[in-house]
């Protein structure tokens, strides 16, 4: 709990952060930058978990512990995504989204 800051302000902040991430996800053309947008989204979600835990249910620790899991997953996901990106780069010498559209055929 932060002195003088209500849950509304923090949730507003995380919402903004989340949608900035969504915007990045929509508009970026490069796989790595899209991955970065996903990091933003995940961060917003993790903060939300912690905030709701501490402000609303301080007696339980579910939110706090799940934020740890989220970070672990985010790290793992990043590692895997980058492995895929590098492999893809080997195949098509590009990490642009438009070069990965072959799946539609």
């Amino acid at each position, binding site marked *: 709990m932060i002195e003088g800051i209500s*849950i509304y302000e923090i949730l507003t902040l995380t919402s903004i952060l989340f949608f*900035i991430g969504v915007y990045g996800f929509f508009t970026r053309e490069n796989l790595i930058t899209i991955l970065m947008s996903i990091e933003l989204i995940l961060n917003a979600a993790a903060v939300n978990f912690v905030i709701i835990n501490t402000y609303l249910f301080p007696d339980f620790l579910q939110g706090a512990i799940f934020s740890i899991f989220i970070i672990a997953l985010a790290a793992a996901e990043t590692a895997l995504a980058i492995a895929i990106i*590098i492999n893809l*780069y080997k195949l098509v010498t590009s990490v642009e989204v438009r070069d990965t559209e072959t799946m539609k055929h």
Partner: protein
Amino acid sequence: MERILFYIFAVLIVIFAVASVSSRKILRAVIYLLIVLTAVSGLYFLIDYNFLAAIQLTVYGGGVIVLIIFSVLLVHHVELELEITPLKTKIIAAALVVAGLSITLWAILTYPFNTANNYKSIEVDVIGEKLLSYGEGGFILPFEVISVLLFAIMVGAIVIAKGKKLGIKTGEKLE
């Protein structure tokens, strides 16, 4: 004091997040992302959840960002400028985002949250006990699941990144 700090962090987060998703230089975007992540860890400090703040700094600030930078350096020139997204896409995305954001904010701001008063800081030892406890309210099962998942992802990442030796066919395609 804390209030001021929060607003500083909030402003940092929003500004650099926007910069991170709109910068046309990829390495700069990564650095902006690093700043956002650090500011988020600042938020955790403010809530008195020091353990998570530390994790945030080490795993994100240390691990993830370094990974991303490495991959950027592997596949791009440092000074490479990203392509400009078509304006049409940008407008549609912005409209969607604004609509989503407004409806989310509207939902949050109109909902009467019952804030509890018996606030206590989250201590590392409690977290550790909870993670390994198999009694009521223990998290041993998700913990184990996550560890298995991490292992699987490690193996998977290595195999995928090795690429060529996985299948001879892909190798042939390259040549």
